[in-house]
C-alpha cells in the first residue's frame, strides 16, 4: 500500500489537480479506516450498506478542504450565487495597458478564432453577456441594435433565447467546435471563439475582423493570422 488506502497501487501517482487529489485521498483514507475497523474482508465489506460512505462523509471532506482557506473556481453562475463563500471571485477582462495598435493606430483589444468567414467585418457595441439577468433583460426589452456579444461561455444555452439578435459574437472560451460555435454557424452570426481579450470594456465600439478566413481546427494556432477586435471610438 503506497498511501493511506485499502487498495495497493504499484504504479499510481497523484492526480494533477489539487482538489481532485485532496478529495480522493481523503475518500481512500476513510474507506481504509472503515474497512480496518469492521474486521471484514474487502469482498465482505464492499457491498455492506452499514459500511458505506455517507453524505456526511463527503460534506466533511469538502469542509476540510475549505478549512485550509482554499476556494474553488466557479464555472456556472448559479454555483457562486448559491454558495458565494465556497468560490473565488470572478476574474474581470484583463487590461495590461500594453495593447498593440493596428495600421491606423487604433487599439487592438483582442483576437480570436473565426468560426466561419463572414462576408464582411462588423462594427458594433461590445456588450458583456455573462449573467442570466442580462439575458433576461434583453429577452424582455430586446437586444440593442449592433450588439457584439462578448460571452465568457462557449455553451449554447445561456444566450439561447437572444442569440439571433446579435450582430456578432466574441467568446472568451471554447473552440470553433464548441456548442456556441456550432449555433452561430447555423444562425450565420459572425463569431470568434477562444478570444484573448485585453482592455475591452463594456460599451466600447469595436470592429471585428470576421471577414478573415475561418480557423482550421486541425492546424497549430497562427497568432498573427487571427482576426482582431479593434477599438474604434
Amino acid at each position, binding site marked *: 500500500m503506497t498511501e493511506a*488506502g*485499502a*487498495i495497493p*497501487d*504499484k*504504479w499510481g*501517482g497523484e*492526480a*494533477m*489537480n489539487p*482538489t*481532485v487529489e485532496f*478529495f*480522493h485521498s481523503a*475518500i*481512500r483514507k476513510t*474507506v*481504509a479506516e472503515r474497512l480496518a475497523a469492521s474486521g471484514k474482508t*474487502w*469482498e465482505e465489506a*464492499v*457491498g455492506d450498506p452499514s459500511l458505506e*460512505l*455517507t*453524505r456526511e462523509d463527503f460534506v466533511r*471532506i*469538502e469542509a476540510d478542504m475549505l478549512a485550509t482557506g482554499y476556494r*474553488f*473556481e466557479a*464555472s*456556472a*453562475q448559479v*454555483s457562486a450565487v*448559491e454558495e458565494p463563500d*465556497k468560490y473565488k471571485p470572478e476574474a474581470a477582462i484583463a487590461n495590461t495597458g500594453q495593447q498593440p495598435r493596428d495600421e491606423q493606430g487604433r487599439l487592438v483589444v483582442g483576437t480570436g478564432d473565426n468560426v466561419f468567414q463572414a462576408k464582411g467585418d462588423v462594427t458594433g457595441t461590445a456588450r458583456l453577456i455573462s*449573467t*442570466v439577468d442580462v*439575458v*433576461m433583460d434583453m*429577452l424582455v426589452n430586446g437586444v440593442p441594435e449592433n450588439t457584439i456579444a462578448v460571452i*465568457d*461561455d*462557449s*455553451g*449554447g*444555452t*445561456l444566450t*439561447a*433565447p437572444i442569440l439571433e439578435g446579435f450582430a456578432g459574437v466574441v467568446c472568451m*472560451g*471554447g*473552440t470553433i467546435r*464548441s456548442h456556441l460555435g*456550432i*449555433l452561430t454557424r*447555423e*444562425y*450565420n452570426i459572425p463569431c470568434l471563439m477562444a478570444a484573448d481579450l485585453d482592455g475591452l470594456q463594456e460599451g466600447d465600439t469595436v470592429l471585428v475582423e470576421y471577414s478573415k478566413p*475561418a480557423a482550421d*481546427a486541425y492546424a497549430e494556432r497562427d497568432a498573427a493570422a487571427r482576426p482582431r477586435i479593434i477599438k474604434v471610438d
Partner: protein
Amino acid sequence: MPAQHSYADLLAANAWIRKASDAFYFQCTARTVQESKLFPVNPYIALSYLNAWYRYPELFRKIEAVMSAEELGDHARERTTSANIITNGIIEQFYLGGRQMLMDMGMLKATDAMDDVMYVLDFTQRLNLSYHRNHAHVLPTDAGLSAQLLPERQVQVFEADALGTKPGDKLHTSVAHFLAAVSQYAFLKNSECRLGIHNSGPYKVGGGEMLVREFVDLAESDLPWLDGVAENVELNNVTMPVFMKDTHFNIVDDWASFEAQPSYNHDNMYAVGLYTSDYLSDGYIPVHMDSAAELADYLDHLRDTIHDATQRLWKEVAGWSRDQMIDSGLLVYYNVPKDLAHIAGVYEQEDWYTVEDRVQRFKPLFNDEYGNHLIAELVGYISLRSQQGNESHMAKLSGARGDMWSTIPYSVLGDEEWTGSVGPIRGGSTSLPQKTALYTTTRGKLTQDQCNEAARALRIPTLEDGLRHLDDAWVKNHPDDPRAHELYRRTQARSLVLKDKGAGLLREDVLALRKEAGRDD
C-alpha cells in the same frame, strides 16, 4: 472461488473496454471542451456516470427479459429514436466512467461487480453490433469515422422522395432557419449537451452525398421539463435527409457529429426531406412532403413552435436551483439507454428520471472546480492514479502511461477474490418537478402504460416474416427473389415516388423516377 466467466469472455470484455477507452479518448480530446455559465456541466456529467454504474445492470436485465440487445439494435436501425449512434455507443462509456471514478476513490476494486460489468459490456457490444450491422463495424471510429447505418432500400426512398431546392428559394431558407432553431433548442432542452442531435451517413447519392440529420425528444415526452413549454411541438423526433453537392462529409463520429470538406455550406444543399418516427412507428413517416411549398410552410411553423418552446424553457431554467440544473443534466446523460426500454415496452419514468440514493450522497463533493477537473483528468489527461499503467506502457493515440478505463484482471479466473454485483436499485429522487403531461408519439398523446402496450404489440414489417436477416449482402445475389421485392416494398410503403417499385432499382432508375414525379422542380 473462480469467476463463472470463460477466459475467452474475459478477453473479449477487456478488448471492448480498451476499444471504448481509445474511442472515447479520441472523441473527448478531438471534439470540444464542454462548459456553460448556465449549467454546472462537468459536475452533472460525473454524477451521471455514478447513476449509470449503480443502475444500468438491473435495467438492462429488465429490458432483455422482453427483447434481446440484438433485436433492440435491429428495431432502432429502422427508425429515428433516442437509441442511436451516440446514445447506444456511449452507454458503456458512462458505465465504465462510474466504475473508474469509484476505483480512483478507493471505493471499488477492478474485481468488483464482475457479473454486472461483464453483462453490461456484453449487452452494449451486442446492441452496437446489431445497430451498426449495415456497415459491420461496432463504432463509427472503426469505420474511419463514418456511419452508414441504412441499407439501400431506405437510402433509395430518401433520395427518391427528397424535394429539390436551391439558395434563395423559400424551402432553402426555411430549412436553414429550422436547423438553427432546432439545434439551439436541442442544446437547451438537453441541459447543454449534444444528445438531442444526431447525424448518420454519409451516403453517395446522385448529386453528391446525403447526410441524415435527426433531432430527438423535442416534444412533451420523456423530459419532464418539457411538460407545458413544449405543448405545441407536434413531432417528438424529426429526420431530415439533406442532399449536398460539392461537399464530402469526411467525419461522422461516435457522437454523431459531422465535419465536411470543404466546410458545410448550406448553399450546397440541393434537396431535402422531412420525416418523423419513434419507438411506436413501424418506419419513417413523411411529413408535409407533397411539395416544396408545403414543406417550407410546415418547417416555418415547426420553427416557430420550437422558438416559442426555447423561450419558455429558458425562462423556466433561469429560475432553477443548482441542484435542479445538476439533476436535469445528470438525468439527460444517464438516461441515454431510455429508448431501449421504450422499444421493449418496459419504460418506466421512475427508472430513468430519478437519481439513486447512492449517487445523491456524493453531491456535496461536486462543486464546479472538482467536477471540471475530475472530468478533465478522467477523460482528457488520463492522469488519475487508478488509470496509470506500468512505466513502459504507451496508450494508443496519446502514448500516455495511462488508459481511460481499467480492464478486469484475469486473476479472477483463478483464486482471486471478486464480487458479483452492485446489488438491486435502491430508491431514487429528483429535485425537478414530476412529469405530468402525456407522451407525444406518432400514435398521438399517450400515457406511459399505453406507450408500453403499443410498443409490445408493434411489429415492424421489414423485420417480420423472415425478412429480418435479409441484408444488402443477401440482396446483392437475390435481386429477383420475391422476398427481396417484399422487403423493398415494405420499406417503400409510404414513399411518394417508389411505392411498390420493389428491389430491382439502381440509382439511375431512382433518379429517373424522381424526375418523372417532379421532385427536382
